[in-house]
């Protein structure tokens, strides 16, 4: 029970911190002081209080999009185990629901983007939907590997307990899987090298261009939803990459938080040292991620 409460509180409160850390890491790399680590929280608070401006083209879809997206992402967060702690809800086949909830979120975000009738937003929506088509198979290959290794059909047993032994027994496949999932993590969260969340050129963006016309509280919901998505998929990655646990609940929660912070720093480092890929290169990278994961599956099925 305590674990479930901590799970929910962490999921609700921690995500913007990750954004803050990523921003700080990038600032340090660039030799700047950078915004305070808590800046994303201030931004959210400010946006929730602000008024909003709507395009006269938009309908209810434009307003419902961010809301459903956030609801779907939060629902998915109930299914993912954080560190070595089981998820509040867990049942056989929950990984399918987990992945499809993000599909629903994507449907809503892209539909809301098209509601403005803007070419830029259409372009961003098209890219988001296209890249997702290639990221999904990589995710499912990885899920199949995890299912096979753990002998179970649910995220909690897949990601807790057995991962550490899997590292010893089939390290190669877990390594490939981790690589593939890291690419998926970066694509799904629109990070460099696939998308640049800080660029100011509409033509080159993916996620940020889709939400150009959102403002005020709804924009806050979008930012928060994106942060939660980073948190949830990041938890999926750290569960695999850093599967160590002591068995003492509180220490394990501490370990998980440290792992997530390390992941945020890692993403910050990647963003600082890598250039953005050309858009045409992105599908190649995603195909590579699929092949890594498929290869990993081949190794465990052998």
């Amino acid at each position, binding site marked *: 029970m305590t674990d479930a409460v901590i799970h929910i509180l962490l999921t609700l409160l921690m995500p913007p911190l990750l954004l803050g850390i990523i921003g700080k890491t990038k600032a340090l790399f660039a030799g700047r002081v950078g915004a305070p680590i808590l800046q994303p929280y201030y931004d959210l608070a400010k946006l929730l209080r602000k008024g*909003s*401006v709507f395009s006269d083209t938009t309908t209810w879809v434009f307003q419902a999009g961010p809301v459903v997206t956030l609801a779907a992402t939060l629902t998915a967060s109930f299914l993912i185990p954080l560190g070595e702690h089981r998820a509040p809800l867990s049942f056989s086949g929950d990984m399918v629901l987990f992945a499809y909830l993000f599909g629903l979120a994507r449907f809503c975000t892209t539909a809301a983007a098209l509601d403005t009738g803007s070419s830029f937003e259409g372009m961003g929506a098209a890219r988001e939907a296209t890249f997702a088509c290639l990221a999904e198979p990589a995710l499912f290959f990885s899920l199949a590997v995890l299912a096979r290794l753990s002998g179970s059909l649910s995220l909690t047993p897949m990601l807790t307990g057995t991962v550490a032994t899997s590292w010893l027994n089939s390290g190669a496949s877990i390594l490939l899987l981790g690589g593939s999932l890291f690419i998926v993590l970066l694509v799904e969260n629109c990070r460099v090298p696939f998308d640049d969340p800080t660029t100011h050129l509409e033509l080159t963006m993916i996620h940020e261009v889709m939400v150009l016309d959102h403002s005020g509280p709804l924009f806050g919901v979008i930012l928060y939803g994106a942060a939660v998505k980073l948190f949830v998929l990041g938890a999926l990655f750290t569960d695999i990459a850093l599967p160590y646990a002591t068995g003492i609940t509180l220490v394990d929660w501490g370990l998980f938080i440290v792992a997530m912070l390390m992941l945020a720093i890692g993403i910050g480092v990647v963003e600082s040292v890598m250039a953005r890929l050309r858009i045409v290169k992105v599908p190649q990278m995603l195909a590579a991620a699929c092949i890594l994961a498929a290869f990993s599956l081949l190794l465990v099925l052998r």
Partner: protein
Amino acid sequence: MDAFPAGLTEPARLVITGTLLMGASGLPGLFLKKSPTEGQLCAALLVVLGSLMGLFGALATILTEQTATYTLASTLPFGPCAIGIDPLSAFFLIPVCIVAACCAVYGTGYWPAAQHPRTAPRLSFFFGLLAASLALLPLARDGVLFLVFWEVMALAAFFALATEDWNREVRDAAKIYLVVTHIGTLALFATFSLLRTGGDSFAFPGAATLDGTGPLATAIFLTALFGCGMKAGMMPLHIWLPGAHASAPSHVSAIMSGIIIKMGIYGLVRILSFYDTVPAWWGIVLLAAGIVSSILGVAFAVGQHDLKRLLAYHSIENIGIIVMGIGVALIGRAIDMPGLVLLGMAGALLHVLNHALFKSLLFLGAGAVIHDAGTREIDRLGGLGRRMPWTAALFLTGAVAICGLPPLNGFVSEYLIYLGFFSGVVSGKGAAVPLLGLAAPALAMVGGLAVLCFVKVFGTVFLGLPRTTEAAACHEPGWAMRGPMVFLAILCAMIGLAPVALPRFLEPALFTWNPQLAFAGEGLADAAPLGWVTILGALLVLMALGIGIVIRQRLQAAPRGTTGTWDCGFARPTTRMQYTASSFAEMLVKLFAGVLRPKSHQPEVRSLFPVGGTFASHVPEAVLELVITPLLTAADRRLSLARRLQHGQLHLYILYIFVTLAILLAWAY
């Protein structure tokens, strides 16, 4: 029990009576030349009545798990004909009845007799006949009767499809459909003839009574796969489907896509049920065919910009998903994993029902748009959501459902099939396991592509601003058209949110399909925790409502302004500058260019000051235009010699018949 043979029990009586009502529904209209509207209403009423009877009969059959067979002991040349009902037939009757009733009502608004006095009575008649044959097909218990109903269905569909026969495009589509469907029927002739060898009648063998090994079983499997696959529209055999679905009146498209192609699935499922042991390669073949069909189907759909053609390609995709489920079930039987059989087959059967619901919803929604805008070109529409809020919301429901997204019904069936894949990967053995491992990502990719495709359709048609004046003048259809859509959408949401009730309906059908499952002791509820889907679905809905209410309060508390969409500083954007469906899909079409073979015609820029030009791009029906047509043309050239046999001389034709007869006699001797 007087009017009906005593062998038929109560639910069966209801079903048969309902079918007769449906079949006869168009007859009054044919004679009421003076008042076509009354005739049409009468036909719709009869179809609804017949469907209700059929539906109740089917549900009663499933819930009481009874099986009834009756043999018409007449002296037909092929021997006695058998008709019967069991939970498997009844399960297929459910979508038939629901969709037939919805489409009949919708037809009165979509193709009103007042506006089409010449074609409406004919359409009503063939629609009723089609509905009746669809309801009778699952009742057939021997090969001959099956083929008779199959043929009636094919012909009634042909005439309903060719309603707009003055239109060349419609005529061409209808012709291709007619030829292809008969090629498929030919294969089924072979199937049933082969099934007869060994026995002395065409009557269907009981479930799990035949041996699946050996060349005879292989031949039966392959011919059945070809014949049924052609009707179902599996990938390389789908050539008739996009054209036919696009050209038919929308409610006929809905029943074609929702039901007729499912009869191919029914045929396959029924024939497979005869076998006790099946070799693993049957399952592998079906699974591979399903993967190919679903990925290519949806990839082609992404490239389309004709609303109904696009939906038609999605039928190919969904048939692929169903076939994947059947493949999983067969693999489960071959490697003796009842859980896999249960999950795969339950997913396949449920997807049959689900696809019937959301695809007819989508076709009816598309019909409402086409009815008013007068065009099927997605890129000429836009902004309809403001003028047709009901249609937009209903179409959105169908779109979310067909993408397999929670909390609607498409998710439930895909969830079952995924569970089948994953359980196979976890504890399966043998050569099928890698394919099961490949199938899960393939289905995920299909899901992603479907999302792309339906965001594209919904966004281009219903969101943004109207691109043409026709699109700007659209208005909401009347309740005759809206009502059926609302009903279908409610069903989609119900199945999606309350799937716990489903095992009660699916299990009898599953146990009829393979009686061994009933003895395995594992129920569907044990294999798939559907209750959790309900909980998570409710959680999702509540969470969305909660966040929505909070945000609404915030929005009302703060000032709110309205302005134009951000145009990046460009001063005079027009509505035609909105992102079109073609541009939305362009990136993906390029990725799949190797298969899709997109064609584009772009203006050539010759001078420094280019003049105006036009740009067009489209994705052709690759199999038909790049494989079949060139093949047939080549065959036509090569076989011109053989055409001399066809010269119009009657007495020589009689000679051919005589020679054939003589040869057959000699062979028999």
